[in-house]
């Protein structure tokens, strides 16, 4: 074959190959679009519920499966298309959902924390009103006001909550407490204030030097901010707490009473870090590893949410011997709640409404929460808890003052909470290396002021007052 003919033949092959590749790409795109949640213009062949959540771990998965069973009984013809996205307490799932919502191909429903996290989706105009579900199930009568407020914006409901976790709990090792007579000397943890907490920690350090008085975990940063939020409610009370996390105070004025309380808490954290009252290896630990220190007797106390109970039970730690729990403080209940919503232009709106009814139903809430380790969002549902901890929580949910958690998407804007993670962990880290505490606290306060500005915190809750978030009892 001559050189010219060979050149022509080869270039023809290349052209054909390129055309085939382009055709394959286009075909693949449409095939992919058919598998992904379809836009409303292409009606699906069979009724489905396309749902996204992040409950992939042991215990969580069984819990959501129980709700699926309740749903399937009432709606046997609807196929559940589950998209569990593991990782990062929802960080990965949120990124996926963001893409789906922004591109106009929303799923039918997805898991979201009630409160500020939900509001970000509502503000972006992605979610539909679910007032009809609340009315049908009469949820306003059985869900306390704070939790209603966390699902309600501009007078309309945008989500149905399924559970409630408590953020402010003190987990402690009963053997260490008994040995040192902590409760006799300092009283029940339910009644401690911030100074007592530090005193107890110092006492434990003096008398049991190889036990870390307070366990913390800062590898993923947020558990430390979690401690901050609990101590802020302890020192400042619910109003100061709500003002701080919503930016509804005179934040440019360093003498504002909110700053006084915040500085006290920052100072307490710095003192605890400097005096070695924390476990030194906290930057290596995740929240469950810090919890493990308590039941293993390597740490005396841990301030964290009540998913720790689920963790303790899953590793077979013995209540009363290896671990015990006390609401901290008892008078205030910092709550967080997982909920489900209905995006606008959801592919199967009837399936979503049916799902939200299952989520809000007594049966669904009872079965889910028994397994999950939380309590129902509805106060009229009382599962037979096998553990000794939850009956008190359920009772407190009806009787204590309620405020939403900040670290878990309740009362604050996530951008601000993210900055707080960095500020609080930097404070604790620097204090442990021996820096001057007052300088550190002042520096952190300045950083928080800048963060409030930079993240636009006060604008986020414009039009709301702090009474909206607090159920005073």
């Amino acid at each position, binding site marked *: 074959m001559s*050189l010219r003919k*060979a*050149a022509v033949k*080869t*270039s023809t092959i*290349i*052209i054909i190959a*390129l055309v085939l590749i382009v055709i394959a790409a286009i075909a693949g795109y449409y095939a992919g679009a058919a598998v992904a949640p379809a836009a409303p213009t292409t009606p699906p062949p069979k009724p489905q519920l396309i749902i996204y959540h992040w409950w992939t771990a042991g215990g969580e998965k069984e819990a959501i499966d129980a709700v699926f069973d309740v749903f399937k009984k009432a709606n046997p013809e609807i196929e559940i298309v589950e998209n569990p996205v593991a990782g990062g307490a929802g*960080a990965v799932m*949120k*990124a996926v959902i*963001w893409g789906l*919502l*922004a591109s106009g191909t929303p799923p039918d429903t997805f898991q979201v924390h009630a409160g500020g996290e939900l509001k*970000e*989706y509502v*503000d*972006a*105009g*992605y979610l539909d009103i679910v007032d009809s579900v609340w009315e049908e199930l009469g949820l306003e009568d059985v869900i306390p006001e704070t939790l209603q407020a966390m699902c309600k914006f501009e007078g309309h409901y945008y989500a149905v909550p399924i559970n409630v976790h408590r953020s402010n709990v003190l987990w402690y090792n009963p053997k260490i407490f008994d040995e040192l007579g902590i409760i006799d000397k300092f009283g029940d943890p339910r009644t401690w204030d911030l100074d007592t907490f530090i005193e107890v920690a110092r006492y434990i350090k003096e008398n049991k030097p190889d036990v870390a008085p307070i366990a913390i975990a*800062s*590898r*993923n*940063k947020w558990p430390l901010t979690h401690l901050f939020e609990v101590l802020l409610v302890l020192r400042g009370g619910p109003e100061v707490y709500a003002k701080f996390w919503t930016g509804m105070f005179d934040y440019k004025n360093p003498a504002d009473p909110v700053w006084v309380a915040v500085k006290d808490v920052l100072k307490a954290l710095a003192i605890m870090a400097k005096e070695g009252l924390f476990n*030194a*290896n*906290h*930057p*290596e630990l995740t929240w469950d590893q810090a919890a493990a220190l308590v039941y293993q007797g390597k740490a005396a106390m841990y301030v964290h949410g009540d998913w720790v109970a689920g963790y303790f039970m899953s590793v077979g730690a013995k209540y009363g011997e290896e671990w015990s729990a006390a609401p901290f403080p008892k008078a205030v209940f910092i709550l967080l709640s997982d909920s489900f919503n209905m995006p606008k232009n959801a592919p199967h709106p009837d399936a979503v409404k049916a799902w939200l009814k299952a989520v809000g139903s007594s049966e669904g809430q009872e079965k889910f929460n028994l397994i999950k380790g939380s309590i129902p969002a509805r106060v009229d549902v009382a599962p037979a808890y096998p553990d000794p901890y939850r009956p008190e929580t359920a009772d407190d949910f009806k009787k204590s003052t309620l405020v939403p958690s900040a670290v878990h998407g309740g009362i604050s804007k*996530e*951008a601000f909470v*993210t*900055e707080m993670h*960095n500020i609080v*962990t*930097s*404070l*604790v*880290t*620097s204090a442990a*290396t021996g820096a001057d505490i007052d300088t550190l606290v002042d520096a952190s306060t300045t950083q928080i002021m800048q963060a409030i500005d*930079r*993240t*636009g915190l006060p604008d986020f809750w414009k039009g709301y007052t702090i009474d909206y978030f607090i159920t005073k009892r």
Partner: protein
Amino acid sequence: MIASNFKEKLIFLAPILLITAILYVMIATSIYVSMSDWRSYKISLNFVGLRNYVELFSNPRFYAALRNNIIWIALFMIPTSFLGLLIAYIMVSTGKELIFRTIFLLPTAISMTVAGTLWVWMYASEGAINTLLKIFNLSFLTKPWISDPSTALYALIFVTIWQYLGFAVIIFEAAIKGIDPALIEAAQIDGASSLRIFWDIVVPQVRHGFLVAVPLLALSALKIFDIVYVATRGGPGLATDVLGYFMWETAFWSRFMADGAAIATIIFAISLGIVIPYALIALRRWFG
């Protein structure tokens, strides 16, 4: 066969031109987003000029992260390339290529995420490294490698050196094999020691290996994200914060997409500062 006319040249280049076009369109979009007001779930592309950059440059965290990246580039690039050269030389001169290649390529084959997780466990206060030190009666050397803000960054840099060593070894192995054997034989006949040969013949002859390795390693150090995310989330505090992590947190945690894009554009601009000189030198070298 030779693609002599323009049409045929175009056909051959079409795929790469298409991909490059898409890439640059995306970079341009990203730069536009960095000058927009997109700071929520809702896409918002109103032009705001350089406001986001002004805010970024007045944020102390930016400078702290940049400083960490610069330290990372310096402490990662130089040891990795020199060690890579040294190991490649030993490998080629002893001829035990299979063993060396296996040992040094294994870390490179592991994903950064896996490497990060493994090393966090090894660096733990009661992890493998401290335990080994105690066994050998070197307890005074034990440190909370990851928990101490003054050592955490260097601990992570070491992990990246460990990982990229195989990459450097491969590059320099090829470079060394390209040396004219007559040069080395002549030196050996003259009685030169291995060290002499290494310093005076091998190192000058593999300059082009450095030309390849150094920019690529520098770019890797600039783009570091996964190991920081997996091991420390930029902690303790912000001791291991890098531009890549700062960008991800800003864009995807805080949902300040425009500001995240601004950080990404800065990373891109800095990498141009590495790539453009490299390209100029390489082009001059190859095309005279």
